[in-house]
């Protein structure tokens, strides 16, 4: 089975995003960028499937600027076989990302799409569900366990009250949650090997998708700042303050 993994290049999760003074967006100049952590989990899951013999080929796809090549290289170093970069400097919205991925999938015909539940920049949590809708495939989001057997996949999902397990017909879209696995670090030899793996570079127009989008960002502002309060000496003082000063007890 072929597994397709969409991976996004985003701000590194250890970096605190800062709003630009002109309110046009978040300042990404000279900021460390990495593969979206949820995409890393998806790649790891695909690689484990390959190691188990469930998957035979892993294709990593990214939509983004030329630097998104690095993100694909990271996936290749973790164990993906080849990459597709749909290069664009536009900040593509989830609906258009889903349309581009659908076009790639129609060419590649994977049995399973594994992706992140959420990109930690836009926090949309939307592309997987939208891709499944456009393909008319079943979906299982927020996966903490994925087991492929024959023509179906059993997925345990993190839901509001706990866990839910679904069985989907393949092909299907599965989005990874934090507890699906712990992604590996690529070894140096694998990083070297990844340099020789092929990446196909395309443009959105190659797929006939207009990436102009439906949303206009009017401004990006800083959230109201919360300031540090006071330190209390002990529990008794804390309770007294919560009662009389804060009035929350």
């Amino acid at each position, binding site marked *: 089975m072929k597994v397709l993994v969409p991976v996004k290049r985003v701000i590194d999760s250890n970096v605190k995003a800062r709003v630009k003074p002109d309110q046009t967006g978040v300042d990404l100049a000279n900021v460390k960028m990495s593969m979206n952590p949820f995409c890393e989990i998806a790649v790891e899951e695909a690689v484990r499937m390959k190691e188990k013999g469930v998957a035979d080929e892993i294709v990593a796809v990214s939509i983004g600027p030329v630097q998104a090549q690095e993100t694909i290289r990271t996936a290749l170093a973790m164990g993906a076989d080849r990459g597709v970069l749909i290069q664009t400097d536009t900040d593509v919205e989830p609906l258009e990302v889903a349309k581009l991925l659908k076009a790639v999938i129609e060419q590649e015909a994977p049995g399973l799409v594994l992706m992140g539940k959420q990109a930690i920049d*836009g926090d949309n949590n939307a592309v997987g569900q939208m891709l499944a809708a456009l393909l008319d495939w079943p979906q299982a989001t927020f996966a903490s366990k994925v087991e492929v057997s024959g023509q179906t996949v059993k997925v345990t999902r993190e839901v509001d009250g706990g866990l839910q*397990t679904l069985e989907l017909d393949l092909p299907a879209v599965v989005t990874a949650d934090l507890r699906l696995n712990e992604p590996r670090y690529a070894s140096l030899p694998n990083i070297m090997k990844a340099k020789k793996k092929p990446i196909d570079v395309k443009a959105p127009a190659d797929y006939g998708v207009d990436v102009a989008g439906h949303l206009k960002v009017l401004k990006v502002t800083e959230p109201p700042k919360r300031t540090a309060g006071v*330190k209390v000496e002990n529990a008794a003082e804390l309770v007294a303050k919560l009662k009389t000063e804060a009035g929350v007890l």
Partner: protein
Amino acid sequence: MAVLVIADHDNASLKDSTQKTVTAAKALSGDVDVLVAGQGVDAVAAEAAKIEGVRKVLVAESDALGKQIAEAVTAAVLPLAANYDAILIPATASGKNYAPRIAAKLDVAPISEIIEVVSPDTFVRPIYAGNALETVQSSDAKKVITVRATAFKAAGEGGSAAIEKVDAGAGAPKTRFVSDEIVKSDRPELAAAKIVVSGGRAMGSAEEFQRVIEPLADKLGAAVGASRAAVDAGYAPNDYQVGQTGKVVAPQLYVAIGISGAIQHLAGMKDSKVIVAINKDADAPIFQVADYGLVADYKTAVPELMDALTAAGR
């Protein structure tokens, strides 16, 4: 202009994120209907009919809807979509699961987790773990929006909307429900609780988490939350996770015990009215947002806090 709100419920009772989403919907339009999609949801529909300002309540029922399967909810909603200019959905795990699917079928750009309605086509939503707020304007004629419930007040009671059955749609032919493990608790629900007590990695084990956090939560009548580290390590169930990629809470009082205060955790609790942090590291980032900080080992601080609460009549 009319708005459809999709109710959040567990087939037995309505969750108050629904009333909060109705408030957001009213900022768009005076004509607000509520869809209850589930199985055996008479009681839920009756509760929804009482929400002030709701025009009518639509009820769709099937087994697949009872399990909130995304394909099924989408199939139930699509035939209704023609009657509405916007569909508003609480940003719960369930709502986040089906909202984008509905949007894609309608060829519209979903707008995730709004915290403010600026005008019927312009909304504010947090991005980058809440470190920035984005004001977006949608050019879609029909909008599909998820709503961060903590940012809106619940609509009151006093309505008496008509309840109407609608078609359940085609279900989810390619998806089968296998099982679920729903954590039963007598405590208030995390997302709606007035007080939340959360524990972090410092607890060191599930036993310790239960021994320390739960009695304190019981004493305060609080819900229990956790950091990702505590959930990953198995100290607490997954649906306790508070943060950017877990639940967002904004209680009157949030008590963080042995939690460092990573950006991703703060994203889920920094809109709480009062924040208390107990941490033995005086430099822990949690103290930068805490109204009251106690630098102490929780092993001594929590028992003392229990005693102080008893002395104060809790």
